[in-house]
């Protein structure tokens, strides 16, 4: 003979409560997602061959070709040369320094992650002078950065060209 339904209902409610309690206990123990990785690239944009910028590095990752169209939005220069590249983790609520060149460090603070995975960044582009007391903030901004769309910063002129920075969130 089958047991009455109300006995199963009691079992069901008990099992549901146990599963809920287990989930609420174990959910916070799940591994937090790793902090996002940010990369800063420094390009030298010029009409010439770039010989006046001796610190060029080989573009092994194809970054110039990848961003050439976007870089042309920032400058009318015909050629782009990669000078520096720096990748680091941007842990939430901490400031990090990305230094594709020690003369132009980027200070970035990951102030939070958006529901769509984008991060909010408070960043400052510095220019180091020969004397530390003369370090200058060139530009500062609050930006929501996604992995799909990098941020390009067209900075100061230098020699026969212009220094252009690119910040991207690694996916």
């Amino acid at each position: 003979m089958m047991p009455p339904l109300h006995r199963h209902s009691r079992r069901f409610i008990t099992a549901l409560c146990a599963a809920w309690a287990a989930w609420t206990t174990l959910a916070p123990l799940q591994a937090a997602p790793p902090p996002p990785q940010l990369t800063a690239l420094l390009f030298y944009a010029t009409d010439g061959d770039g010989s006046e910028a001796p610190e060029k590095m080989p573009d092994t990752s194809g970054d110039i070709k990848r961003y050439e169209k976007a870089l042309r939005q920032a400058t009318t220069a015909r050629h782009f040369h990669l000078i520096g590249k720096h990748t680091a983790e941007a842990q939430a609520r901490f400031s990090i320094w990305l230094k594709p060149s020690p003369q132009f460090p980027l200070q970035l603070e990951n102030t939070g992650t958006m529901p769509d995975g984008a991060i909010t960044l408070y960043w400052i582009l510095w220019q180091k002078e020969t004397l530390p007391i003369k370090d200058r903030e060139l530009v500062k901004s609050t930006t929501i950065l996604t992995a799909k769309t990098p941020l390009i910063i067209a900075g100061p002129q230098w020699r026969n060209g212009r220094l252009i920075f690119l910040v991207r969130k690694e996916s």
Partner: protein
Amino acid sequence: MKDEPISPQDSQMTRWIDALPDAPLPEGINIDEASRERAAAAAVATLLRQHVPLRQDPPYPDFFNAQVLKKIRDEEALLERAPATRQAASWRDVLGQWLRTPWMTGATAAACTAIAIFAINPRPLDEASSGTRVLTVFSPEPNTTTRVMTAADQSAVVVSVDGLSAFPSDRLVVGLHTTEPQSLVASHQP
């Protein structure tokens, strides 16, 4: 009103009045009085037979027959629908038995928990739905302007700082290629 039980003597007396076989007059009964009762009962019976017909036809035979035929048709229709009804009942029985199976309790609890988890933690939105956005931008340098542009192919957001003094040509911009982890610095401490 409660029915009083009939005593065996009364029952035997009634049978004697009705002139049933094997019904002798009970003892202690006056035969004359009993005979008068018997004659009165026979007179009432004769009177009833004379005035009440033994066979009574329905008042409207055609209507009666039509109602009988209608009842027959209704019952036939019920019998035709019976298999579907029985099938529905058996389906409900099977569902009831299935719901009463012991493993069903745990399985349903797990399913409800999974649904609750998905309902509480909605799937993250696709980053592609919204690109990089510059909320604020400012240059402390004098005589500078900042412009925010989106590349024609939406592949990048460009912040152009115009009017900056040029970086001295006699200084070298040293390039670095680093992937070493950064030493973390507390917020707003350059």
